[in-house]
């Protein structure tokens, strides 16, 4: 397997990564194509946005679990004034948390609440990779 060390270096200097040293494992995994979801070992709940303290039981025993990468559209809105238009959505993940994202590689007319989607990690400006979603065909 060819490892693209160039992109790995890129995420490390992303201005949205640098101030959050405790979250580096999330971005390292994302750069390798693995979408991690934080889960509390104490109360077993997943949460989003990721943080090293459980927002529910306040335990600091958090593990990053590779997400199944699947979910359904919880709601969406289409930015019609942009060229081209795009869909900003909230996706209800298989693990439970509902996360803000953008739906890519889709026909905007096919979108509906409840539509199955799967994650597509893609690098953004700055170098870190974010969980976009695409219809699951």
């Amino acid at each position, binding site marked *: 397997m060819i490892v693209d060390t160039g992109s790995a270096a890129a995420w490390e200097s992303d201005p*949205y990564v640098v101030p*959050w040293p405790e979250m580096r494992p999330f971005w390292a995994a994302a750069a390798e194509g693995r979408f991690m979801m934080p889960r509390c070992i104490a109360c077993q709940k997943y949460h989003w946005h990721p943080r090293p303290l459980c927002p529910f039981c306040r335990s600091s025993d958090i593990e990053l679990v590779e997400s199944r990468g699947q979910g359904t559209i919880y709601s969406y*809105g289409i930015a019609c004034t942009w060229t081209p238009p795009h869909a900003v959505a909230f996706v209800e993940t298989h693990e*439970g948390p509902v996360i803000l994202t953008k739906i890519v590689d889709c026909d905007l007319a096919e979108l509906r609440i409840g539509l199955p989607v799967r994650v597509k990690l893609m690098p953004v400006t700055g170098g870190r990779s974010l969980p976009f979603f695409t219809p699951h065909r």
Partner: protein
Amino acid sequence: MDLRGAAYVVGAYEHPTRHAPDKSVALLHMECARGALEDAGLGFEDVDGYFCGVDAPGGTAVYMADYLNLNLRHVGGGELGGSGPIGFVGHAAAAIAMGKCNVALITMAGRPRAEGQRIGTERQTFTPDFPFAPWDEHFDWTISTLYANYARRHMHEFGTTSEQLAWVKVSASHHAQYNPLARLRQVFTVDDVLNSPMVSDPLHRGDCCVITDGGGALVIAKPEIARSLNRPRVKLRGFGEYNKVNNGGMIDMVHSGAAGSGPPAFAMAEVTPSDIRYASIYDNFTPMVIMQIEDLGFCEKGEGGRFVMDGNLISGVGRLPWNTDGGGMCNNHPMNRGGMTKMIEAVRQLRGEAHPKVQVGDCSIALASGPGLINGVGHFHSTAILERE
């Protein structure tokens, strides 16, 4: 200690401008402050407490107080978004009740129109220090696409329709036609809204508020001072505030923060929604009005779309006269923040100083309510219940 009767709104002023290319933001704050103090019959030398949001140059009351040359015993404020001026009324009342100040000034102003902002449709950039920014930045979301999400979910869960959303704009426009300063004075029909361009599907252009320059100010005073002034007395009777969070991703998209700020405000005031003669409810986008009307208890959850139909929000026509200045929908949305103008029109109604065509008869109790910042990213909400004494 509760805040019922702890303070009065003795001064209120809405800046007449809607476009201010030749004025600084600091000057707009100054002019608003002067207008509200003149309205109250007080002077700058009487102010000993000051509250403002990050719309004030420098981002804190401390710097703005220097420009205004205030001699303060108490400063407050902070970033509560558009809800700020309503929240600050409660915070000022608490400060007054504790003896920290006697006369509190609240200002809000800005000039997004002169600066060419397209606040609803342009990309919002949050710096990396915001707790959510690493995860939410770069998805090309805009404020209107987030509200489009909330609208669509409400439609999905409750059957709310685009026609029902349009009634919010239609109602505001019926009021704005009588306001010579309103940014939009055109009377809209439901079809006008539905035929307007789609901005963020399912929201049309008509579902969005206006972008205007300007601002406003309020003067809050302790009861003894209010009684010494030659103005109709507007008493704070109830107040509530609530900060709605994402709850670790277990989000609730169909309730606004009003579900948290409304009940304590009504409990403090010892009134129910049916006692409210007039309501100012912040209208950045039409679905937000429907959600707040439900969450404040004016109707059952999910019934807001049906509630607003057929002119039920139009003064003299419906059950809940609302935003009789034309609201953010049509009149004014200075600095992209709606709380100030909501408070001001509620004060006008209680004093009997609204436009005669929209003045509510015997307006004894009014409510002002509004969200700040963005539901699902950070959402503060405050509700004030005011009484004419």
